[in-house]
């Protein structure tokens, strides 16, 4: 069956450390993978997209990698801050690259303690 799995429901780390979140998928061959942030009671907010032919993408303190052989994406937040505390969702298009259907993993709740 097709699945998107995010490695842990919750991750708790010390401020200033690097947070690493994992997204694994099975039985898909997505052309790209996205990461979103969701705060409690709010809609998801797009952060980054990485394409299948890209190994790594960076945006400020965020870095995403995509390994199509392992069927895995890693999402890193460097120099983490309490304001980074949120749920982070990975998402992909299981149909084609037309964006007609974007589906989400269950998310990892990240808590950064001061």
């Amino acid at each position, binding site marked *: 069956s097709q699945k998107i799995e995010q490695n842990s429901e919750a991750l708790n780390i010390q401020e200033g450390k690097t947070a690493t979140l994992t997204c694994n998928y099975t039985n898909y061959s997505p052309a790209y993978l996205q990461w*979103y942030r969701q705060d409690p009671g*709010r*809609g998801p907010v797009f952060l980054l997209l990485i394409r299948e032919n890209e190994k790594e993408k960076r945006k400020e303190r965020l870095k995403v990698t995509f390994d199509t052989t392992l069927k895995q994406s890693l999402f890193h937040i460097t120099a983490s801050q309490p304001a980074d505390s949120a749920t982070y969702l990975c998402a992909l298009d299981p149909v084609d690259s037309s*964006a007609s259907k974007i589906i989400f993993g269950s998310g990892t709740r990240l808590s950064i303690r001061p």
Partner: protein
Amino acid sequence: EPEVTQTPSHQVTQMGQEVILRCVPISNHLYFYWYRQILGQKVEFLVSFYNNEISEKSEIFDDQFSVERPDGSNFTLKIRSTKLEDSAMYFCASSGGTALVTGELFFGEGSRLTVL
């Protein structure tokens, strides 16, 4: 900055009643979506809409659900006869322009539906 707006923010209804949730997507966007999130669970795809017709729908989107773009700006989700298990946050999203190439979705703040 353009945003997706949703109304109502919270609706309480009795089981069996019809509910219409409304969304105003970003004006130059072409794809429109509804997602739902039951409390504490994942964001689940319901339906996508493009060129005035449904593009994709999930198994959740059964005959009790319908979508419409009645006037070129609003995008609505109708639940014909609500059940207790329809209680959830419903998110509208849109995509288009350069974002269509990437599939980046812009979400509204959600409509919380409580079915009693």
